[in-house]
């Protein structure tokens, strides 16, 4: 496939008795933003490390930008999960060093570093030692180290971890901008609502097995809860009388009602019928959030225990 930035075919990786990645097939289209999801220990970082040729699969093929990551190191930006900085090194020197290793000329780097530091709202830190920065600032510098060479493919392992909401939003914006400029981006995360905002494709793996590989629209179609949420102006009407509505759920704490509709019913027709029956403050089809999809898939793949663990992981982010 010529338009695939990454193509993984039947990849397996074992560490001793642990089968970290099983028969994984994955295609990351060029120019897409892909969220790589999965609970802790699912095999995300192992897969990413294999993509980066830092470790190698026991069997299977991985193609990155048409060949291997080794041949294309300078075209790939990588922010590892285990990331750090040289504590005693000055920020500017650190970025210059990493940029040089990625094959960028020093003269180009100097202006580029200054521009980027400005963009990540750290314009005056170039002369400061890395250890003098706060953890959040260091993370932004680490992000910069991953993309300072203007790569075609950007792989970010947990980029939002440890960032405050303001900086997470800034990172979100930068990822969007990179996407708009045509770069392929793949990132693993637990912050699913962030992923939902910027990703056009999602992969979910658990226990090294791929559980989901779809676009957001495909996910909404696949995981349609067949529910319409409506908030009537004059309290409960006789919504259960509308053809296609199976049941109406209400709660004391929430004025909205949930209409569960039949599998073969047309949701738009039902919504029209609801509005014909009287004024409503709001009406919409309910969609599962990525969190709910995540938990449901993990539960199906690994049972309740895995789902509980996934819920706990999500509650920590």
């Amino acid at each position, binding site marked *: 496939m010529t338009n695939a930035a990454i193509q993984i075919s039947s990849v397996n990786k074992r560490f001793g008795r642990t089968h970290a990645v099983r028969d994984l097939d994955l295609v990351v289209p060029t120019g897409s933003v892909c969220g790589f999801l999965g609970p802790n220990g699912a095999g995300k970082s192992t897969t990413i*490390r294999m993509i*980066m040729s*830092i*470790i*190698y699969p*026991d069997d299977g093929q991985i193609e990155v930008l048409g060949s291997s990551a*080794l041949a294309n*190191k*300078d075209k*790939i*930006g*990588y*922010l*590892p999960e*285990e*990331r*750090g*900085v*040289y*504590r*005693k*090194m000055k920020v500017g020197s650190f970025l210059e*060093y*990493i940029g*040089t*290793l*990625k*094959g960028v000329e020093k003269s180009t780097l100097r202006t580029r570093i200054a521009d980027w530091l400005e963009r990540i709202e750290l314009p005056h830190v170039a002369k400061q030692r890395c250890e003098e920065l706060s953890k959040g600032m260091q993370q932004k510098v*680490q992000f910069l*180290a*991953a993309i300072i060479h203007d790569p075609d493919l950007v792989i970010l392992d947990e980029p939002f971890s440890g960032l405050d909401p303001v900086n997470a939003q800034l990172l979100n914006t930068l990822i969007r901008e990179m996407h708009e400029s045509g770069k392929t981006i793949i990132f693993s995360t637990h912050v699913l609502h962030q992923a939902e905002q910027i990703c056009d494709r999602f992969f979910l793996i658990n226990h090294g097995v791929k559980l989901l590989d779809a676009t957001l629209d495909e996910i909404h179609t696949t995981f349609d809860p067949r529910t319409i949420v409506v908030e009537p102006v004059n309290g409960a009407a006789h919504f259960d009388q509308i053809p296609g509505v199976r049941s109406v759920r209400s709660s004391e704490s929430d004025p909205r009602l949930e209409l569960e509709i039949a599998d073969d019913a047309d949701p738009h027709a039902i919504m029209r019928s609801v509005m014909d029956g009287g004024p409503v403050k709001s009406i919409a089809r309910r969609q599962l959030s990525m969190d709910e999809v995540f938990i449901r898939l993990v539960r199906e793949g690994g049972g309740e225990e895995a789902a509980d663990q996934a819920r706990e992981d999500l509650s920590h982010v």
Partner: protein
Amino acid sequence: MSKILSVAWRDFTHTVLTKAFLFAVVGVPLMIVIAGGATVLIMMQHEEPPIEGTIAVVDSVGDLADAVALEFNEEQMREDQQEQIDAMTSSAMENAANPLGGADMMNSSAALQRGEVRIDVERIDGEAGMITDDLKERVAEGDYLAVIAAGDELLEIPEDRQSADALTFQVVAAEDMDVDHVTLIQRRVSQAIVRARVDRAGGDIEHARALVTRPSAETVRLGEAGEETSEGELQRELRRIIPIFFMMLLWIASFTGGQHLLMSTIEEKSNKVMEVLLSAVSPMQLMVGKIIGQGMVGLLLVTVYSSLSILGVIAASQAGLIEPMQLVYLFVYFLMAYFMVATMMAAVGSAVSDIREANNLVTPVMLIVMVPLFLWMPISQAPNGTIAQVFSYIPPAIPFVMILRVTADEPVAAWQIIATILWGGVCVVGMMWMAAKIFRIGVLMQGKPPSLVQLVKWLRYDH
């Protein structure tokens, strides 16, 4: 290649541009030179307070008091000073080879730097070897600087040297007398006793001294063409020191580089910067770059220290002691030594997460590399002996043993030098291959550090 050089340059600059390193390279030798110079200056400037007064000598016969008076005679003291200068020059040479002899040198210099001395001697007629309370009181009151008493047996010809050594005389001096003055009196009285003893035996002290003065050797060495090259005592001693100096230089430089390599690898692992680096360079490029960078650090040390040493021997007009070829060997064997130490340090550094964990793995490495230090003596004594020849082919002892051999007096066959360099090169490549295998796995390992057995197992892993 440019990535390797970038890694090397970063490691080099970030090691040598630290205060700790600058202190170690420039500060320590500078401090030694300054401290040495200051000590010499202080010793040259230092003069004890002048001493003037009378020494009472309890002497029933009168010859001891005369002998003591003669010892404190100004002219005699000047002559003795000159003798001591001569003696010190030769003892300094001995001390260079034997640091334990330093005490003698200090005594000589102390005597040399003494302030003015004007001492009269008063004979007290009394029982030999007895100092009365009255005399002690006069010392306490300051009438006398000291009172001396020697038993008759000191002035007779001793039966043998052992019994002569056991004899003592008495000196009573004020508590606050300068210790150098006490030493001065002890030594002069001791000489006076010998003088009186020789007189009583009917001899002449100068004659006796001439008789017991030991001759010194004039060594002539023959060059390859049979030409004579005269060599003094100092040169002979320096020639003995040079091999150990070269080996220590090699050892310190390769270990300093190796130690920095270990620390910087551990730092990159513990700072979690390793994976960032591995996204830009391969583990092999990273390892080679780091080894080259820290190798330059070691080379800088070798250059600084050997240059200082060469300046030192030139200043001492002994430039001929170090041959240019020896410096070439130093360079070649430094590279070999460093690469051997560095590969081991890189492997260890990659496998652990902090310096405490490293200690367990570094200790065996240290023990292996310290073997040549223990073998210094037998190799120096027999540079072409069996031990020297066997260890010349056992890595990582090869460069350390060979530098001892090629800088020793006894020439080493050219084929042996070539063979050890070639074999050493093969060993370096082999060690580099093994280190790369361990490094590639180790740099990504976290948690419990591996045992030596596990490290060996890593050598068999493909990925």
